[in-house]
């Protein structure tokens, strides 16, 4: 069966520090991968999606970037964190022939 792993679960980082969140999917090939950010009372905002290795699309301009170095690995990064980057980050995957996302358990990022 397919599983999705996301880590770390919680992260507290100072302003101006770098960020790297990792997401991996097991049990499937060539998944579509997504990064969402969830802010209180504002639902989920799609940040990036990827349909293949090295293929990254950004939905909103921001201080973050994403990379997909391997088929089932998706990384969210920042060179210098801002206070406004705080939030709950969710990775998700979908198959091309099955509709609906499967989400990871999320990372709570607090920038101080």
């Amino acid at each position, binding site marked *: 069966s397919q599983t999705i792993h996301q880590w770390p679960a919680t992260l507290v980082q100072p302003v101006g520090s770098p960020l790297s969140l990792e997401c991996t999917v097991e049990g499937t090939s060539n998944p579509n991968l997504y990064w969402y950010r969830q802010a209180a009372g504002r*639902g*989920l905002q799609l940040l990036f999606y990827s349909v293949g290795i090295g293929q990254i699309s950004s939905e909103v301009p921001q201080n973050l970037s994403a990379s997909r170095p391997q088929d089932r690995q998706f990384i969210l990064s920042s060179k210098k964190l801002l206070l406004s980057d705080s939030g709950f980050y969710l990775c998700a995957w979908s198959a091309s022939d099955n509709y609906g996302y499967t989400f990871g358990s999320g990372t*709570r990022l607090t920038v101080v």
Partner: protein
Amino acid sequence: AQSVTQPDIHITVSEGASLELRCNYSYGATPYLFWYVQSPGQGLQLLLKYFSGDTLVQGIKGFEAEFKRSQSSFNLRKPSVHWSDAAEYFCAVGAFPGGYQKVTFGTGTKLQVIP
């Protein structure tokens, strides 16, 4: 552009009572509709989805939802709520512009269950 409105930010129901969570969507074509549930500090879990066919869809955990095109609604229902149903519920509408699924989520409804 697709959008989803969940008019109720917070709902409180008694355990054993029935539940209906409202969802209205905006989408130019036949919508792909979803309901997800999120427990505190966790990711989202897919409850059910609708693409076509029977407008009443059954999901996990005893939930169902009814698609009403004339009302642009996709309300979630459960006949008898259990304390473990306390969570946040998200309605979502999906589009498939090519190569990936673009899913837009509502802002969520927090469900509180009282004994």
